[in-house]
């Protein structure tokens, strides 16, 4: 039996692939990669902005004229952005860290992780492990990878996300907040003898390098305390919906 095979094509495709990978890891492709990334991100941002306008248009009453409607939409978006920036400015004044405001340009593109792409990178002083916050100090996640003009942040609901936290109860219980398959957040390793009540607030413990104490994570929704397990755990309701945010801040330690 004779098999059709295009050895030349197969070998040249694999060879070309490995050449690109080598050049990438040696850093020779940094410049074109950044330019390509910027081009696509500009387009993604434009689509996102258009989507926002369309969504807001649907909310505005149809009784007014089209020009008025568009102006009202733009006004609403500006108001929304203004209030978000206002809250972040208040937080900046109270905080002991420098804040870099960034826009979320894309979410969960590789399907495997719950990761957001921010439009600020190493050129703006962003480094790995810096905390990402929303509004008046609500923790969203942490920076995990940086490029010149963009950075990747892992959000709290990702199953690989782990952050030291404290419950605002009488025992000041310590534990680790981790994500559950992008669907939930829970706090684990809480000693069994400590008293936790539904509704208790959970904040960062400040025991990690670069993450200050007091960033809000969420509230206790349920407590699981089984007699056969050495620790108890708390299911957390996040303070905000991570899928619906657009502007965040990255905390840079002074």
């Amino acid at each position, binding site marked *: 039996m004779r098999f059709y095979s*295009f050895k030349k094509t197969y070998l040249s*495709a694999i060879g*070309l692939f490995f050449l690109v990978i080598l050049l990438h890891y040696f850093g020779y492709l940094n410049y074109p*990669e950044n330019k390509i990334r910027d081009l696509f991100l500009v387009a993604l941002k434009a*689509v*996102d902005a258009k989507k926002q306008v369309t969504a807001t248009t649907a909310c505005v009453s149809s009784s007014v004229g089209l020009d008025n409607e568009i102006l009202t939409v733009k006004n609403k978006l500006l108001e929304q952005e203004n209030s978000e920036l206002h809250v972040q400015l208040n937080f900046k004044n109270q905080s002991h860290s420098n804040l870099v405001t960034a826009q979320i340009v894309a979410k969960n*593109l*590789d399907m495997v992780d719950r*990761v957001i792409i921010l439009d600020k990178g190493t050129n703006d002083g962003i480094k790995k492990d810096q905390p990402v916050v929303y509004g008046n100090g609500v923790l969203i996640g942490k920076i995990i990878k940086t490029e010149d003009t963009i950075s990747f942040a892992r959000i709290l609901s990702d199953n690989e996300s782990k952050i030291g936290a404290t419950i605002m109860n009488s025992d000041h219980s310590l534990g680790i907040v981790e994500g559950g398959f992008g669907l939930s957040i829970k706090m684990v390793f809480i000693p069994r003898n400590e008293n936790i009540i539904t509704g208790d607030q959970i904040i960062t413990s400040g025991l990690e390098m670069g993450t200050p104490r007091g960033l809000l994570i969420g509230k206790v929704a349920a407590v699981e305390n089984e007699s056969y397990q050495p620790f108890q755990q708390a299911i957390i309701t996040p303070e905000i919906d991570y899928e619906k945010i657009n502007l965040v801040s990255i905390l840079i330690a002074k």
Partner: protein
Amino acid sequence: MKSKILKNILIFIGINFLIFLHLNWRNNFGDPIRFFNILMAVFLWLIIYNPRKHYNIFLALYSFLICELFYNTPFGIESFSQIITLLFMNWVLLNVFTNRSTIIVFLTGIVAMIFYRLLFIVLLFLNSSFHNYNNFDIFIYTKIFWNETIITTGVLTLFYLISSIFVKRLHPEYVINTTRLI
């Protein structure tokens, strides 16, 4: 010559639009819909129609590498599994699945997606064993990849069924053959 250049420019614009569509799709849609892998579906469709056209393989290589720039997984793992899958499927379509019935198209999609994701998981597992990247959870991967396989294969088969009507009606080879018969 002029038309060849124009054709290449159009292909380049088209392929970049496809990459943009793929990224935008994953960025804007919710969980069941965003599992549809546009790039894999389009390139599988292209090699099903014409497995002898090598141009498709290089176009696929370009688009997979560009998309990799936006992923958090270590650079090269996703695109390597994708390109090896396409080369493997190209060989399979030339030598094993030589028929082009709906069942074969469906089977091509299933085999390709399973092969692609198995290779991806193996490479990710190997990488997590050697490096500090330990985001490896077989439960979540199986769930995601099974959904992706079903949705992508379903859409690919449907798209093939619809497109085959037009390809058979508009392709010069088919038109000429029909005229001769008449």
